[in-house]
């Protein structure tokens, strides 16, 4: 067996986390991207900057604030305790929430670009053909923005797989709960298990390369509207 039981567990957990985060962000980021692409409001700048923050912020900073917010004395922690689900740090769902923030720009920005490229015209055309706003969204906007959504989903998934700092801050290192592949590698190195660290690292390296290869080799044929 090339990978240990613990390694496989970590990989499955990582894929699970990345899949759930990508699904959540498809729903959460689309309206944000839509608003950013359309608005002429003064708030566009500040909101765009907040969305982009995880790109430049050390993950430990993001993780630290999330830890405070979700902890027993933080506002989110108070809410979750009041709801009777305890506190989120050091749980899988705490990790999901942290990752949603951490990967937000990777979903928002490509989708926002796609919406901006499509422009107003197709939406106006749809309106003159009797399509209401939701109808237009599903029959015109989504199909036209599909390449943007695919790019965004691949980036978000891959970026979540590669997450480390935020996980350490709010997830800790609990087997089968928060111990994702990147943390597992860190553990191997700490324990001087360089062979194990190598095997898992190679898997991660290949995965990341293949994802990026798919992304760069695949050129959606740009359609003229």
């Amino acid at each position, binding site marked *: 067996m090339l990978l240990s039981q613990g390694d496989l567990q970590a990989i499955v957990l990582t894929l699970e986390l990345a899949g759930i985060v990508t699904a959540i962000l498809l729903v959460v980021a689309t309206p944000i991207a839509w608003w950013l692409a359309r608005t002429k409001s003064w708030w566009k700048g500040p909101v765009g900057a907040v969305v982009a923050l995880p790109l430049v912020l050390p993950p430990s900073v993001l993780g630290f604030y999330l830890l405070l917010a979700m902890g027993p004395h933080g506002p989110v922690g108070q809410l979750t305790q009041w709801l009777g689900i305890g506190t989120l740090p050091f749980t899988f769902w705490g990790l999901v929430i942290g990752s949603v923030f951490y990967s937000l720009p990777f979903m928002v920005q490509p989708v926002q670009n796609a919406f901006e490229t499509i422009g107003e*015209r*197709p939406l*106006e*055309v*749809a*309106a*003159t*053909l*009797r*399509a*209401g*706003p939701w*109808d*237009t969204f599903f*029959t*015109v906007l989504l*199909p*036209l923005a599909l390449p943007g959504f695919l790019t965004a989903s691949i980036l978000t998934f891959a970026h979540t797989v590669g997450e480390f700092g935020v996980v350490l801050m709010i997830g800790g290192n609990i087997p089968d709960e928060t111990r994702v592949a990147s943390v597992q590698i860190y553990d191997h190195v700490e324990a001087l298990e360089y062979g194990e660290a190598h095997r898992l690292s190679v898997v991660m390296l290949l995965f990341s390369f293949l994802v990026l290869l798919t992304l760069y080799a695949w050129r959606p044929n740009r*359609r*003229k*509207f």
Partner: protein
Amino acid sequence: MSTTITHSGIQARFFLRFDGFTLDVDLDDLPGRGVTALFGHSGSGKTTLLRCIAGLERVPGGYLAVNGEVWQDASRALFKPTHQRPLGYVFQEASLFPHLSVRRNLEYGRQRVPHSERRVALEQAIELLGIGHLLERKPDQLSGGERQRVGIARALATSPRLLLMDEPLAALDSKRKREILPYLERLHAELDIPVLYVTHSPEEVAQLADHLVLLEQGRVVASGALGEMLVRLDLPLAHEDEAGAVIDAMVAVHDDLYQLTTLEFDGGRLVVARSAQPLGTPVRLRIHARDVSLALARHDDSSILNILPAQVMAIEPAGPAQVLVKLCADSAGRTPLLARITRKSVDALSLAVGQSLYVQIKSVALMG
């Protein structure tokens, strides 16, 4: 709340100001049938006006009623969004949906119209625009002219109660324009859908319009029946190089011996080169002002075939050497004509308003 009133025709009131541009339009007598051209130079506000009518620009304080149905009335806080207005819109670029085939593009709007309101059959729209052989293609496999024809058919297939066309030929070269114009004329002749047609081309106006609205810097300068508007000496149209009158006539007689065709209109007859159109076909004639000369007596010794009695209605200088003369070719004043002659000739003939004389027409352009 009832949205119907008893007026027919189109009433439109819009006031809009942005980036130093003001649109201030109050039109209460646009005909509810035929083709109305919104004519003006770029920046005159004609496209903005069309977008207001479509509801694509939301104008506070606006009012719009189309053949008795109110689409927008600020005083009642009524604003129908674009997708609830039974209109068709043809954009300057065809703007077909690139992810759908021609057929699916045509069906897109039609599917969203209730069965009871479908009056134009899909087949009819396809046949009218001659696009039957293109149905399975994707938009990027079409030429510019084909795309625009599909765009027009797509708008027609929704059985619009008002068809809005925003310079549908402007993005095409002159060959493609000539390819599409006959389809637009057919549409005009075969479907009873009022059309608002934005253009800056006097040619398209002369060929297609029944009614003309002249826009300048966001305001309506004049609005009226095409025949009268083209010969109004106080408007810039009569002063253009290509200025002239249009006459709606009918094919009356074919002369096979001399290969000529006689056309009949209110107030007279004109002879043109043998036309292929069958007898009884309505046709539109264009007579350029530069092709009309005036004579005090009827000269039967002239080679010119088309000589009509007429009366001088107005005289207006047009440049240092030339003068525009507005005439009418029948006693009831129903067929106006325009002549551009020299100031010297005016003096030589001592022309005056009210005078009876003869017009000699050197050339008649037959359109459609």
